[in-house]
């Protein structure tokens, strides 16, 4: 027995955490995250700084670890809530990308859909002075409907006129960006901040500066909804006929058509769901995290979420974890930069590296199974 063990090749033994196929959807992303942190550590070392210190500061800044001192009314908990606040739109946006991906569609327009629904909700509800109990649900509703309509239009154009969704979504991104910038400049501009005027507290999806136990904190109401919706989407995709049909269309259009699934309407439906989720991302971002809209700027979240969705295997629960990780790096970078004296931009480099390594997931899987086969062959020939 012990003799056998000795014969196992070193390479095969080294990959032990990756060998179990059942755990690969988790073990491969985790491995790629570890590798990218090692790569980032090397970069930080080359800059002459201490990587452990830097990573420690990163987690401190994100509210995962305590900082040595806090300004008035703040603690680790306030930082952590701010992390969740920033993470909420990311979860929605990534879910939007993921649903479209399952249907074989590529939604590059999440940023545009976010802006459109955020703007509509701001104009309709944000400035209305409605009571909080009506305003907040109404914000969500407007966001979802606006995003869903815009997404649905993309799907319909594809189904009816065969216009590639990548082109449509890119065009809509630009159109939304410019048209909304026009309206903000004309009617809603705040002359000092050069952004749209702040929305009323009642319409805001983040409770700002709430005082609890001598701490001031921002409570993101959308976060709980984001988790709930992620679970609903998982249920929708895995357990319902709708989800099955969407996935069937995504994996093989022709086969789906042959079995009698309506490809066209499922394409439109998937885009409506995707757009609706993007709309929720928009309202939690513009009416939650920020409270106003910067004209002529599309948020990066719509593009980053593509990668976040993929890091989470386009799986709703995976997405919660991947958005959490990416948000930590995003949020912690300012503090890391001020404490460790490393440029803030290194954070986005780390994120880029994580995504790069996780893109190799399929290759790692393939390699592992090859090594496994070899090992089995060798054992067979020896015995």
């Amino acid at each position, binding site marked *: 027995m012990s003799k056998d063990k000795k014969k196992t090749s070193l390479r095969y033994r080294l990959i032990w955490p990756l060998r179990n196929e059942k755990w690969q959807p988790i073990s491969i992303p985790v491995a790629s995250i570890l590798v990218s942190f090692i790569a980032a550590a090397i970069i930080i070392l080359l*800059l002459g700084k201490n990587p452990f210190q830097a990573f420690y500061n990163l987690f401190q800044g994100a509210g995962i670890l305590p900082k040595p001192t806090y300004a008035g009314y703040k603690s680790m908990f306030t930082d952590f809530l701010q992390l969740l606040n920033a993470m909420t739109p990311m979860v929605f946006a990534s879910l939007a990308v993921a649903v479209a991906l399952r249907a074989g569609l*590529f939604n*590059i327009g999440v940023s545009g859909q976010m802006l459109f629904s955020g703007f509509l909700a701001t104009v309709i509800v944000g400035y209305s002075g409605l009571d909080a109990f009506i305003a907040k649900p109404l914000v969500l509703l407007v966001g979802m409907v606006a995003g869903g309509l815009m997404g649905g239009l993309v799907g319909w*154009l594809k189904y009816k*006129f*065969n*216009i*590639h969704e*990548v*082109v*449509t979504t*890119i*065009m*809509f*991104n*630009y*159109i939304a960006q*410019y*048209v909304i*910038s*026009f309206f903000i*400049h*004309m009617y809603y501009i705040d002359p000092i901040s050069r952004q749209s005027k702040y929305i009323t507290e009642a319409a805001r999806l983040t409770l700002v500066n709430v005082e609890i136990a001598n701490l001031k904190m921002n409570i993101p109401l959308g976060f709980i909804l984001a988790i709930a919706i992620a679970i609903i989407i998982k249920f929708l995709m895995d357990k319902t006929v709708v989800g099955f049909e969407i996935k069937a269309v995504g994996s093989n259009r022709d086969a789906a058509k042959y079995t009698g699934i309506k490809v066209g309407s499922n394409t439109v439906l998937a885009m409506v769901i995707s757009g609706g989720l993007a709309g929720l991302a928009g309202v939690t971002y513009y009416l939650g995290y920020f409270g106003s809209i910067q004209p*002529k700027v599309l948020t990066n979240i719509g*593009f*980053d979420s*593509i*990668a976040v969705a*993929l890091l989470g295997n386009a799986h709703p629960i995976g997405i919660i974890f991947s958005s959490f990780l990416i948000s930590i790096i995003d949020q912690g970078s300012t503090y890391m930069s001020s404490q460790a004296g490393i*440029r803030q*931009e*290194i954070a*986005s*480099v780390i*994120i*880029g*590296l994580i*995504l*790069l390594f996780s*893109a*190799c*997931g*399929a*290759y790692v899987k*393939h390699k592992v199974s090859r090594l496994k086969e070899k090992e089995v062959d060798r054992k067979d020939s020896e015995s």
Partner: protein
Amino acid sequence: MDTIIIDGLSFALPLFIMAIGGIYSEKSGITNLALEGFQGFGAFIGAMSAVLIANASGAAIEDMFYVALLFAMIGGMGFSIIHAVLSIKFKANQVISGVVINILALALTTFLTTQINALVFGAASDKFRLGVSERFTIDGLANIPVVGAVFTNVYPFQVIIVVIAIFAWYVLYKTKFGLRLRASGENPQSVDAAGVSVSKIRFSAVLISGLLSGLAGMCFAYSISAQFSSGIYMGYGFLAIAALIFGNWRILPTLGACLLFGFAKSGGMFIAQSMALPSSFTDLFMILPYVVTLMLLIFFSKSNRAPRALGEIYDKGKR
């Protein structure tokens, strides 16, 4: 009218050369959403080389134009190796790889630009200043009405782009390499059966797209933005992708799409200026190229068809 043509062309041509890069890659069967990253990284390498060489030799930054173009092409090509390796050797999903490369390019170049500025010039700026390249006018031809505008205030890079574009057209449609490249995107098995390596062809196609995108990025840096900064990632790469899909993955119709973008853009600006409207109205006219595109696509995209094997990982065993 003249300004519309002059400005339109200086925007359309870099877009066009980038779209040609995209056509090469996609015709060979590799989805390429990474054009944006390639152009940004290429422009970064070009601008960095120009700034550093000018600093070391004492020459004016404006004289570094051709050096910058050359290095931008090398830089874009170098960066495209990542996409080629990921999507061909590592069999990664090509869409994923493309998006990741865009994100990585933006992060890396912003980081490196501030780092290099701090190290070499002692000031933490996130841009390299380049200035605008000089322009020239061909005297005789410029006097022809309307068409003359094409020969007025021409950037040198426009000439370079036209030459390269014609060459690229020739290679893609008239040479053996071009034939094999197109076949790799339609029916890779047949290419393989003919004893030609599909991966090698695809690899070179991706590198070509990187090279051309790098050139395009540098042209934008020397004209529209007059500097290198993260502003170079303005979505032009995605616009090029839209143009090539609009052009049905063929070079000449893609030129048409790019010209449409360029003229609609400069035309919109022109209308806004000549009507002396408040500056916010410029935004409204800026949507012209995109609305026109969508309108035209409604009529023309019924027959649009992507290369058959686009985005599929080539597997020898599969038939």
